[in-house]
């Protein structure tokens, strides 16, 4: 073995991990310079989010041997980001996060290439996400995580024994923080639980009963939400409330103060108003650094097999002493997202339009305004208008024909579902089986005339 400490190399420390065999490693570990070089040349990682976690992730990954990174974020830099999103300076306020983050990391770490994407995650074609070996999430909402999870799991295929096919597995590493608390988890679709399998982990968001807001307010938060959710619409008719518009926020604050005075309730401040209306989550640099580091470490392990991996959920709390715990959650075999797919039996004659209508009424899916793709081909797209026009003629054709007359196959559908009055976009994998093909007889037509 060559003595790597003889030549000065950037990889001085990483080499110890990648070039040397070990005992507490993944069974697939093949140490050597080829591994290090392959990591640099071939592995592509997508970082979703360029905020508190995203900035740290980009730095951590760039300093862990990865050279091909991309980052996607739809937001622009704000002053309140600067206490932790260290890639941004005061002069950067207003610029797209993804672009500035990519630029800054590339400036300081030569050899790494980061492609920024200033857009929503839903704006990208599903195939865009298939380009990456691993997806690292630095997101701040359940909806966004749900979406990316569904996308990554949509690539998963199962063999005839319902076992996941290795080459279709798209691993994800997901982190989240709030104040001194955080979590880091590894999602290997088909093997570990996916985000949807364990969606019950997230407590329901606090919503005040309407009658409390309208009739018996007791706290400052009640007064604020009254102004925000009830009074605004009364006074402003159809105009949507924009939390980023300071005039709107000031209006809500003043109304909240009036109401609080009326009821003798103390505590309404502008800061609290912003916090309640925007659902501001307190955030500090240290927790983001810790959670991102854990995520990046796991990304390195997945890509290189250089050590055992986190199995599979790490929770962290640094406010009272320090508590870390690893829990091994188990996959839900019936999961709508990472399971083999919801099975739907169809007649040969069913048109694409009828199929789309069926999805809306399907008891498990309840998916409205569905767009359908089959093996990368768009069968029908609801948007954008140009694609809608192009695929509209398919609606009247039999789905069986559109899918190349195979007896069964996987399709992906995107659309909107609504849960607890909240609409969210989602992606689902469906297993379609056509009745009356390949000897599968339809009981109704068996027998003679």
């Amino acid at each position: 073995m060559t003595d790597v400490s003889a030549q000065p190399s950037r990889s001085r420390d990483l080499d110890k991990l990648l070039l040397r065999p070990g005992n507490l490693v993944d069974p697939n570990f093949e140490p050597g310079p080829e591994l290090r070089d392959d990591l640099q040349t071939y592995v592509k990682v997508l970082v979703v989010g360029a905020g508190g976690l995203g900035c740290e992730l980009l730095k951590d990954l760039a300093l862990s041997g990865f050279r091909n990174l991309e980052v996607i974020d739809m937001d622009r830099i704000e002053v309140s980001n600067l206490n932790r999103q260290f890639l941004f300076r005061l002069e950067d306020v207003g610029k797209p996060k993804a672009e500035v983050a990519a630029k800054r990391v590339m400036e300081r770490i030569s050899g790494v290439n980061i492609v920024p994407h200033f857009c929503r995650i839903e704006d990208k074609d599903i195939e865009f996400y298939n380009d990456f070996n691993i997806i690292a999430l630095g997101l701040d909402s359940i909806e966004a995580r749900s979406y990316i999870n569904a996308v990554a799991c949509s690539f998963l295929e199962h063999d005839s024994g319902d076992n996941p096919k290795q080459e279709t597995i798209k691993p994800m590493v997901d982190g989240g923080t709030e104040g001194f608390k955080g979590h880091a988890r590894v999602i290997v679709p088909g093997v570990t639980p996916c985000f949807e399998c364990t969606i019950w982990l997230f407590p329901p968001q606090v919503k005040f009963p309407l009658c409390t807001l309208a009739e018996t307010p007791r706290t400052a938060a009640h007064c604020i939400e009254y102004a925000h959710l009830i009074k605004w619409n009364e006074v402003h008719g159809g105009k949507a409330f924009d939390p980023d518009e300071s005039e709107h926020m000031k209006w809500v604050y003043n109304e909240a103060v009036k109401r609080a005075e009326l009821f003798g309730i103390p505590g309404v401040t502008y800061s609290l108003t912003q916090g309640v209306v925007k659902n501001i989550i307190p955030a500090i640099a240290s927790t983001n650094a810790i959670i991102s580091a854990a995520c990046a470490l796991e990304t390195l392990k997945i890509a290189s097999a250089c050590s055992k991996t986190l199995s599979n959920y790490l929770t962290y709390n640094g406010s009272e002493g320090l508590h870390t715990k690893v829990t091994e959650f188990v996959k839900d075999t019936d999961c709508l997202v990472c399971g083999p797919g919801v099975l739907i039996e169809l007649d040969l004659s069913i048109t694409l339009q009828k199929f789309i209508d069926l999805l809306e009424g399907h008891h498990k899916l309840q998916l409205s305004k569905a767009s359908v793709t089959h093996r990368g081909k768009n069968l029908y797209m609801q948007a954008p208008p140009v694609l809608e026009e192009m695929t509209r003629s398919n609606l009247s054709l039999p789905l069986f024909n559109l899918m190349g007359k195979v007896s069964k196959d996987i399709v992906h559908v995107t659309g909107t579902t609504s849960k607890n009055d909240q609409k969210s976009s989602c992606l689902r994998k469906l297993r379609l089986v056509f009745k009356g093909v390949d000897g599968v007889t339809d009981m109704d037509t068996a027998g003679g005339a």
Partner: protein
Amino acid sequence: MAESKTKYDRQLRIWGEQGQAALEKASICLLNCGPTGSETLKNLVLGGVGSITVIDGSKVEVGDLGNNFLVDESSIGQPKAKCVCSFLQELNDAVKAKFIEEYPEALIESNPSFFSQFTLVVATQLVEGSMVKLDRICREVNVMLVIARSYGLTGFVRISFKEHTVIESKPDHFLDDLRLNNPWPELRRFAESIDLNVQDPVAHKHIPYVVILVKMADEWAKSHGGKLPSSREEKKDFKELLRARMVALDEDNYKEAIETSFKVFAPRGISSDLQQIINDSSAEVDSNSSDFWVMVAALKEFITNEGGGEVPLEGSIPDMTSSTEQYVNLQNIYQTKAEADFLAIEQRVRSILKKTGRDSNCIPKTTIKSFCRNARKLKICRYCLVEDEFNSPNLPRLQNYLTDEDYSVAAGIYILLRAVDRFAANYKSFPGQFDRVLEEDISRLKTTAISLLSDFGCNGSNLAEDLINEMCRFGAAELHVVAAFVGGIASQEVIKLITKQFVPLSGTFIFNGIDHKSQLLLL
């Protein structure tokens, strides 16, 4: 400054203006600015720490470009401390950043008094010998010390300081202070003024549960010789009495009363944690006592006298189903008593200060108020000298850790991190630092580790071979992601120590990057 209020908004919501002010007054010394030290400091600078002094004698090498974000290509050959400082200055131009190009070990030997000027010292990547020396120095001058180390996929963080007292410990979950098990006269009178049998259904379901429980508890006590429900049967019966009073299914106030009835059954008086604090010898105060202990002495007197066995009332009440008017009235009653209790404590504080020969006004009202509100949540952290732990650790606990399934890897890492330093002291390099002697180093490290364990009367066979091999494989590498994790923990502890909010960690945090089963070891 308006800009800093917005910039720091997300963290002000955690530690408030006072915490931020403490950070901005602090002066931190960092020893060694490899990635572990650099990442620690980066987080502190982003948070607005007042001043930093970076001590490192090394120059930037090509290898540093692969693990440290705070140095770049243009800094090769330059003093690492200089480069790290200039990047940190860029991160936050409000911080005062200085550097000294000197090896920490040399500074520790030649100029120990150097450290007395700082609020806190962060020592990273020091070997055992220097760590122990520095610890003695900082302890001597009462400077807080946070020690951190990254080593391959492992690392540790620990604190060393004589005594750190916390008033604003801000625990995640803590019971409210409603005194339903011990209502005072005004609260009783208010409850008495409300008729539970009111006819109007709206009024009936808007009586706050505090009132319901105080009245029902009193009723129970009258028919049970002045005692509150204590046995399981009695508690069940009490809940049934509450249920029987519901006139409709949607009476949330009664549902809340049933759910929170345990607050009536809770034992009166103070917790054992607080009992320990007021029994501490430091509560016998003199002119040298800290403000904290003076307030504890006052608290002790209060509890025994006007407190009637209880601490000053916290004063705030949780939200509950209620008419606005009754809720606001209830709030006032609690706030009034809290204010009265505070005044009693304040009087005692001033009198104790006078008795011990200090200016009776030297502790501000706001501090005493905060102390009263947090009386049930006070925390004291005391740390022994690192040397004392190394010389005489808690042996039964160490043995337990080594054999417990959940702790054995972390305990193994703890031992091996000490063993590698001993190894380095003997062989002038770390095990596995050079490829060519890898095999030999493994057996040498094993011997060193086993000898260390036998010094403590522990069995060497408890140390997994695989772990020893891994430590050699690591070859003292400082990996960025591990440094970022360890540095993140270290910076968080620094913030807790400086703001004196939240509770700093106790013991040694052992980072286990192999399977993330990190642990806190209390030795």
